[in-house]
């Protein structure tokens, strides 16, 4: 596959010992404290890892300090986990950093993602608006997961759908971020949306962007 094999070393020595698995990724988004890290931890086969990234963005209309001219740099932390599907396929689950900052890093993260799970705390619905907007614009398949971790039932699903003003085709599922099967099933719902989207694009390749 695509690798630079430098002329001095020759191709044999620079071959990997075995072909690595194909990595696929999904995103977990939502406001602060809504359970992104818990969700990642619940499904990951490894203790979740955290990577830090410096995010440079033009900041215009995105960051609070948009009035400051020039670039802004922030360090964000991103939790992620992993599920080995089989020897040749790994699924990575990335918790998207922050909820307000949709800079270039978000674009990098979303690129190639199969889909996203947007977590909602129904006492703070507005916290997820930015993520919903973002994935709608990206055309990335997503599902809204209402995290009922503390049994809270401030709003029913219909009310939440109205409040979020999302497409009726976007599934809303009730889930518990602490329970494996609950999170897994929410991810499965999202993957079925991703599958439908992929099948639709395969059926009419020219209409992919509509």
């Amino acid at each position, binding site marked *: 596959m695509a690798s630079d094999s430098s002329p001095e070393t020759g191709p044999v020595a620079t071959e990997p010992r075995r072909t690595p698995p194909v990595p696929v990724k999904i995103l977990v988004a939502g406001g602060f404290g809504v359970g992104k890290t818990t969700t990642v931890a619940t499904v990951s086969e490894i203790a979740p890892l955290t990577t830090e990234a410096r995010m440079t963005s033009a900041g215009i209309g995105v960051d609070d300090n948009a009035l400051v001219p020039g670039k802004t740099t922030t360090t964000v932390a991103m939790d992620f986990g992993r599920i080995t599907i089989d020897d040749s396929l790994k699924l990575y689950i990335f918790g998207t950093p922050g909820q307000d900052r949709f800079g270039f890093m978000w674009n990098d993260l979303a690129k190639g993602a199969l889909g996203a799970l947007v977590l909602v705390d129904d006492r703070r619905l507005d916290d997820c608006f930015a993520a919903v907007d973002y994935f709608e614009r*990206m055309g990335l398949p997503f599902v809204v997961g209402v995290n009922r971790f503390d049994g809270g039932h401030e709003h029913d699903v219909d009310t939440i759908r109205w409040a979020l003003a999302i497409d009726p085709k976007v599934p809303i599922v009730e889930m518990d971020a602490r329970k494996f099967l609950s999170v897994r099933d929410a991810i499965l719902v999202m993957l079925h949306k991703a*599958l439908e989207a992929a099948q639709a694009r395969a059926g009419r390749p020219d209409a992919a962007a509509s």
Partner: protein
Amino acid sequence: MTDDHDRDHPGEDDVGGIWSVRPFLDRTARPRPPAAPSVASVPDEDAATAVRPFVVTRGRTAEETDLAVEAQVVTTKLGQASADELSFEYRDIVDLCVEPLAVAEVSARLRLQLGVAQVLLRDLTRSGHVTTFEPGVGLTDDVHTILRVIDGLRQLS
């Protein structure tokens, strides 16, 4: 891939503008919450950054590279054979990636900022010490792969 990603750059748009559009359930109609005390943005507690991260990369930033966070890194035979000749972070990476790991895993396990890890991995790829496998561009359109993920997840309990 002629998809929305290239056509549209949501991050550069006025994301804030749409907040007023969605119906607002909160009766107190508070404005946007103040800049959230995001834990994510204050990673100072165990900042292992006695050396400024970009000293490691001699001032280069990740902008010239674009290794995906999930791209797989694996040490080559050359990398294994000559690990001793490498210095510091390079050697750590070569030692770590005997088994394939994602770029993000390298970053997290070695406590290198993501952008730093991306630059160092590019170096090691060029020198032939590691190979990186980028996910296929068309992966999101690959019905077969998506089905494999679905089937694999279903079998977990």
